[in-house]
Each structure stands twice: as structure tokens, then as C-alpha cells.
């Protein structure tokens, strides 16, 4: 495998860092420590619940916003600014560029999530004074959140490879919202008939299924999460990402640069 993908990934990460993307961690830290101190003060027996729910939701929302806002510019901005000219006249294949960009953004988010995870556990320690066994489930929730990021990054990249940043943002965000209700969508599809049913079922299965990846409330209530679910969600996220990236590659391979 060529190392070029990884050079591109590293440069994408470097760009995010130099654009001060990681500064979002400050906002996150302020939010979480504020919440921890607040619930610690009033002590209403749900400190753990609040910290886990709020912390994990914030990790997920911050990450999604970053994924979408960086992702939508990954290809279109390079075409717009013509930085791609000197990239693609080198021995860089177009698919390597797409995959490299994806890896860079996914890596950025993983680093970001790593620091946020430390924050969540820190806040938990502050309010509960010790860790208990069910706290390990938070790691599963974080892992699912990262899987969610992979899908969002790939989708943002796909839209970026054929449309303008603004439209891409709209598409990616809509898919995020729809995907969060993917279960309901499949339910609706089952209630319809005939051709509508075919179309609705097809659409319901094609949108990303984020509902199975959201286990925040289950984890907050210390409900166990099956190994099967972890395994299948992993496979699902990887295949969905592969599918989306393949589509992005197919589009970008054919694209005339401006």
C-alpha cells in the first residue's frame, strides 16, 4: 500500500490543527466542568446520570459539527482554491486523495474525542468520587460515537466531492437527522403499501442508521450492551463508510477540475 494516503492524512490533520479546530475542547471543558460543579453542588442523586448523558451528548454533537464543517470543504475547497493542481500532477491517485483526506479527518476527530473522553471521566470522578464497573460501558458509548463520526466524515466527503460547501452541509446535516430516526423510518416504510413501500424501504435502508449507534441513555442507566451489538455495529459502520467512500471515489475519478 502506498504511503501517500498517510502523508495526505497527516497534512489534513495538520491543517485542522493549524485552523485551531482543537480549540473546541476549551468550550467542551467549560461546559462539562460547569455542569459537574453545578450538579455536585445541588446533589440530587442523579449526578452520574447528568454527567454521562450531557458529556456523551456533547462529545457526539461537537464531533458531528466538526466532522461536517471540515468534511464539506475537504474536496470542494481544494478544487476551488486550485491546490489540487499541484497534488494531482504528482504520483497521487485520485482515490488516494479521497481516502487520505478521510483518514486525516477521522484521525482529527479521534484525537479530539480522546481528549473529550478524558474530560468526561474526569467530570465523573469529580461528582462520584470513584469509578464503578458500569463506567466501562461509557467506553462502548464513546466507541459507537467514533463509529458514527466515521460515517459522517465519509458522507461529508462524498457531498464535498460533487457539490458546494453550503449544499454539502445541508445534505450532511439532513442525513444526520434522518439517520438518527432511521428506526422510525423503517417503521414508517413498513406501514405503507405498493410502490411507495418499495421506495420507502429502499430509502430507509440506505440512510445511515445512527439509532443503533446511540446508546447514551442505556449507558447512563448502566444497561449492559451485548457483544453482538458491538460487533455488528462495527461491521455496519465500516461497510457504510466503505460504501460512501467508494461512491466518492467513483464521482471524483470522473470529475473535471475547475
Amino acid at each position: 500500500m502506498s504511503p501517500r494516503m498517510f502523508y495526505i492524512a497527516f497534512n489534513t490533520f495538520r491543517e485542522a490543527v493549524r485552523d485551531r479546530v482543537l480549540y473546541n475542547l476549551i468550550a467542551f471543558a467549560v461546559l462539562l466542568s460547569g455542569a459537574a460543579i453545578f450538579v455536585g453542588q445541588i446533589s440530587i442523586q442523579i449526578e452520574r446520570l447528568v454527567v454521562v448523558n450531557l458529556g456523551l451528548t456533547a462529545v457526539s454533537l461537537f464531533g458531528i459539527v466538526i466532522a461536517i464543517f471540515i468534511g464539506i470543504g475537504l474536496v470542494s475547497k481544494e478544487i476551488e482554491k486550485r491546490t489540487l493542481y499541484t497534488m494531482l500532477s504528482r504520483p497521487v491517485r485520485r482515490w488516494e486523495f479521497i481516502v487520505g483526506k478521510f483518514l486525516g479527518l477521522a484521525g482529527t476527530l479521534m484525537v479530539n474525542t480522546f481528549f473529550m473522553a478524558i474530560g468526561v471521566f474526569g467530570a465523573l470522578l469529580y461528582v462520584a468520587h470513584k469509578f464503578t464497573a458500569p463506567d466501562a460501558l461509557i467506553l462502548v458509548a464513546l466507541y459507537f460515537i467514533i463509529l458514527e463520526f466515521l460515517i459522517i466524515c465519509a458522507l461529508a466527503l462524498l457531498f464535498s466531492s460533487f457539490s458546494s460547501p453550503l449544499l454539502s452541509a445541508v445534505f450532511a446535516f439532513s442525513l444526520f437527522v434522518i439517520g438518527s430516526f432511521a428506526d422510525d423510518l423503517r417503521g414508517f416504510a413498513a406501514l405503507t403499501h405498493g410502490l411507495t413501500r418499495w421506495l420507502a424501504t429502499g430509502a430507509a435502508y440506505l440512510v445511515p442508521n445512527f439509532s443503533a449507534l446511540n446508546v447514551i441513555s442505556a449507558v447512563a442507566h448502566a444497561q449492559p450492551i451485548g457483544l453482538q451489538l458491538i460487533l455488528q455495529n462495527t461491521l455496519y459502520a465500516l461497510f457504510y463508510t466503505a460504501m460512501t467512500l467508494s461512491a466518492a471515489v467513483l464521482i471524483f475519478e470522473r470529475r473535471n477540475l475547475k
Partner: protein
Amino acid sequence: MTAAQRTTVIASGCLAVSMVACILLLQHIDEIRPPAAVDDALYVNSPKLLKRASLGFDGLMACIYWTRAVQYFGERHFNHAASYNELAPLLEITTALDPHLLPAYQFGASFLAPNPPNGAGQPDRAIQLMRFGIAHNPDNWRLYYNLGFVYYTELKDYEKASQVFEEGSEVPGANSLMKVLAAKMAFHAGDLATARLLWSSTYESTQDSYVRANAIEHLRAIKVDEDVTNLQAAVTRFGERTGQLPTSMAELAAAEHFRGIPTDPDGHPYRLTSDGRIEVQNPDDFNFLTKGLPRGYKPPALPQFHHRE
């Protein structure tokens, strides 16, 4: 093959394989985890908090929860489930999100109140839901009507039913039947005639096909109940007069001067058993029958509507 063609072939293959894998995995995932509806009913213990957390999208969220409730009910119903534990929480979340979502009360009550398999068998939760609805929509007489119905049909609490119909009749624009119903409840609550009035007024006052079909089912059952009651009385009279049971429906009809052999609403003649009981021929064709059923008859788990408009 050029490099570009190779990329195209590989990417297309990857796309197709991944797409199939995703669909198969989704089906597996759906099997191993509870559907969203159950999930939420488990964790959302404060509908009020959810309303605040939905950041102004509570109208949309209410619609989503309402659909989840319908789906949950439909699915359980289809699977002959014995319990509907999450139904009441789902309806409560829905109505907390949007207290003016009227169908959630009207249908919600008719899902919650009846005993399984027709409903969740939780009339008290149904009443709680309806009371919440009336508190938020005090000038909607239909909600009183639905609530009175629950008292009447499920709890047989005719006094409460009468009271509720009375209150509803005072709402401006209320159907004039409400007054009649209130009076009937007070004096003739157990009559089949009262039941018929209730269901025919339900039928008249709605456009919804589910509600109308349900009303027709009940009206059919009432007709059969009435017929069976009358025929059974005829059999008793015959016995008192002759000292023995009639041997056939024809004999009974002749003795009682019936015009022809009496039939049920589907046109099938009633049957006379050897021990003098009157039965319908096809009990499966009727829901909600209280009379005329064969001995030891078990209704099918999934009621069907036989008369669509």
C-alpha cells in the same frame, strides 16, 4: 486495463458489496436490539424534560412519538402480545410534547382501555390520559365523549360516564346527543339500546375510517346480542308452553310466528343447539359478541373488521 478503469471496477465492486452488507447487517441489528419505541419508553422518565430537550422541535417530536406509539401498538397486536407495557409511557410522552395532538387521546384511549387482545387493558391509564387531554383542550367536547365511553364500556361506571357526558354537553358547540347520552347513562345504562345509541352516534360523528369500522363492529355485535336475547326468550316461552325444547329453528319460527328463519347481520341463519341454546354460525366474523357464542369458544387473537365502508 488502464489504472483509471481498474479504480472504477474496484470502487464499483466495493460499493455494491458494502451496500448489500449494510442492508443485511441492519436486519440483524434490528433483531438484536429493542426498537426505538421501547427504548425511549424505558429511558425517558420525564416527558417534561424531553420537551425542553427537544429545543423547540417538540411539535415534530410529538408526531414522531405518536407514530412510534401506533407502530408499537400495531406490532404488538399483530404478534398477539399479551402486554403493552410501553404504550402508556409513549402516549404520555407524545401528549406531553404536544398536548393538542387530539388523535393521541382519541385513539390512545381506545388502544389503552380495552382488554387484550383488543387493547392494553389499562383503563385507568386511559382515563388519566383523557383527563390530561381535557385539561389542555377543555373546549373539545369529543374528548369528554371518549372519556365517557371508557367509563361506560370498560369500567361499567355509569355514574361517572353520565357525569362526563353531562360536562361535555355544556361545552359550546357540543353535539346535542351528549345531553341524551348523559340522561340515558343515568337511567338505562345497561340497555342494549343505550349501547346502540352510543355506537351509532360515534359512527355518525366521525370521518375516520378506523373509528367507523370499529363502530360498525360494535353495532353488529349489539344486533346479534339483541337477536340472541330475543330468540333465547322465545325458546324459553316454547319450553314453558310445550314442556320440551324446540327441535329445529323452523319449529321455533312456526310456533312464534316469525317471518322466515331469523338471520344474523351477515344473513346467516341463527343455529339452535340440541340443548336449546341460540348460536351464531360464524362466531369468527364478529368481535365484541357477548351472546350467541358456542360453548368454550376462543376468539381469534387478531380481530378483523368485516364490514369496510
